[in-house]
């Protein structure tokens, strides 16, 4: 398995879930921008599941030497790379913040995804799982830069799915709603709408096994988003969301 964004608690929970369910991987490649905590995770899965893995430090904001990634190969890729950044109030006119959000969630991420997609395409097998966001379904005043980057990523995944369909590669888009992770800690989230990383991992694993195309982590989000998508724009623009 190839994991992009390995410090993500959802990614880690997914790796554990897959191993618990008896999935076999020759090696797990853990891409990360934080070597220290990811190495701890690598040791953890070695102790718990005798699973071999390799930590590969990669910073999307720096140029990537793809030649060095030549040997990285697998049948499954899990992309949890993401960056919330500052919301509209603090960060809209801060160009550094805006660029970073766009780059990490979309701009710099897509070339990396493409690099692996090409490997999958040439092998004509495999699954690509991408974590997008419900924030990408409609731009809301509170964090639409993040939302727009995720919207782009969602569109990318759907296009990729379409493109790779007859090449026998499956693409799964995950749209988590609120999640109780480090990224959201300290925010007043409604517990009924918030999934733990473990819940998310269970649901993603199920969707992966069933070869779903798009899955929400908590079913309630499918309903909420359907409503939000259908609010007419002349009303939506007046809402404080």
């Amino acid at each position, binding site marked *: 398995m190839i994991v992009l964004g390995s410090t993500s608690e959802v990614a880690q929970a997914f790796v554990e879930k897959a191993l618990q369910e008896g999935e076999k991987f020759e090696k797990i490649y853990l891409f990360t921008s*934080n070597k*220290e*905590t990811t190495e*701890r*995770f690598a*040791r*953890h899965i070695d*102790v*718990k599941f005798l699973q071999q893995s390799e930590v590969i430090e990669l910073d999307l904001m720096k140029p990537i030497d793809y030649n060095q990634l030549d040997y990285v190969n697998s049948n499954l890729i899990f992309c949890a790379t993401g960056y919330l950044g500052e*919301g509209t109030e*603090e960060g809209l006119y801060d160009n550094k913040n805006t660029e970073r959000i766009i780059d990490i969630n979309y701009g710099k991420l897509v070339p990396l995804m493409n690099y692996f997609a090409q490997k999958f395409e040439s092998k004509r097998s495999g699954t690509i799982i991408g974590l997008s966001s419900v924030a990408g379904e409609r731009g809301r005043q*509170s964090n639409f830069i993040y939302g727009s980057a995720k919207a782009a990523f969602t569109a990318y995944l759907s296009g990729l799915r379409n493109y790779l369909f007859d090449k026998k590669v499956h693409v799964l888009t995950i749209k988590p709603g609120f999640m109780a992770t*480090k990224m959201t*800690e*300290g*925010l*007043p989230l409604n517990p009924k709408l918030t999934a733990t990383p473990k819940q998310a991992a269970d649901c993603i694993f199920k969707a992966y096994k069933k070869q779903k195309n798009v899955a929400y982590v908590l079913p309630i989000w499918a309903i909420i988003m359907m409503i939000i998508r259908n609010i007419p724009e002349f009303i939506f623009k007046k809402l404080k969301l």
Partner: protein
Amino acid sequence: MKPNFVQKVTNWGNFPIVEKEMKSEDSFKNIRDFVLNHNEVIARGNGRCYGDSSLGEHIFSTKRLNKFISFDRLNGIIECESGVLLSDVLEISVPQGYFLYVTPGTKFVSVGGAIASDVHGKNHHAEGCFSEYVIDFKLMIENGDIITCSREENSDKFWATIGGMGLTGIILSAKFKLKNIESAYIRQESIKAENLDEIFRLFEESESWTYTVAWIDCLQKGGNIGRSILMRGEHAFQHELPENLKKNPLRLKKKFEPTVPFYFPGFVLNALTVKIFNFLYYKKQSKKEVKSFTDFETFFYPLDFVNDWNKIYGKSGFIQYQMMIPKETGKEGMKKILETIANSGNGSFLAVLKLYGKENPQAYNSFPFEGYSLALDFKVNSKLKKLIDKLDDIVQEYNGKIYLTKDSMSRSSLTNYLKNVQSSKFVSLQHKRIINNS
């Protein structure tokens, strides 16, 4: 939206409830920043202490320190971060033929919490406290440094931290020994006792058993005081097991775990329901003595099968009163305690009696010493404090003490046995309460 880490926090007894800052981190640098940037910090594991020992102004939750570090499968030595739960340890160790030397009555406690409370199990008389099997641990101290503590290295901090209730710093990780087992089953005997005399005799007769514990029906009066069931057990060897368990002796089948979905309304738990519960519990076993093989989960963690059972006590919460009386006067003291409870009409759902072995003098902050302890759950209500005062009187009279990790109400003179832990950085609400009252 800016994050605001202030939230409602409460431990297993749902009493007290506080609104304080709670944060969890997994990067050591960020943990250091948290420690250095706050005046009063306290570590919190899985909140399975009943009262206020892991509550404070700035709570550092170890829930993200949840990784294993190493497992020496040959010698049964495991190292993990402090937020790893004992249930996580068992998940990987039992199939490999290893069990915890010492486990409390729930497996949902963290390794850090087990060290900070120096927990004991049904085998204290035979195998002591959790700390006996701890090889070393890493502790973040006041200045943010991380030090290794063992019997040889920083031994003063090692012993102060054991049973030190988090007041010496944050335990980041620990290395400890596991014991060999041949099966995941326990050879168990349960024996009914009619009264206190009988149960005390049974305890003393059972001293050669590794695990002993008794459940007491504490609403009985007069000659029936101390009506109880003693349970004793040993890890079963493979050859002893019944045929159907022999094939896969280290693996248990998955069981259904019911969850209590909401807080029970207050009226559900009253003297009558407690009476009925205890009646059924004792009548369930009709024979005087039952021998059986039970899986380790049922034997050690019968309460874990009902997730969130603490909600049965309703929103006002409950406390656990666990005290200890020296062996010589144990019976006499327990009798007084049980009489006082029976007369108060304030029933306890759960009363657990246990005989303890010799204390470890080096672990001077640990709770147990040679004697008997009784653990009682009480629903919080307006009359409770009065009852606790009375019980405290009796415990004091008999030179007993009460268990800090369960405490939230008791008199400070029974609890302030913490030595060498004073620090201006690591402060819990419990310690403040105790110091203010002494």
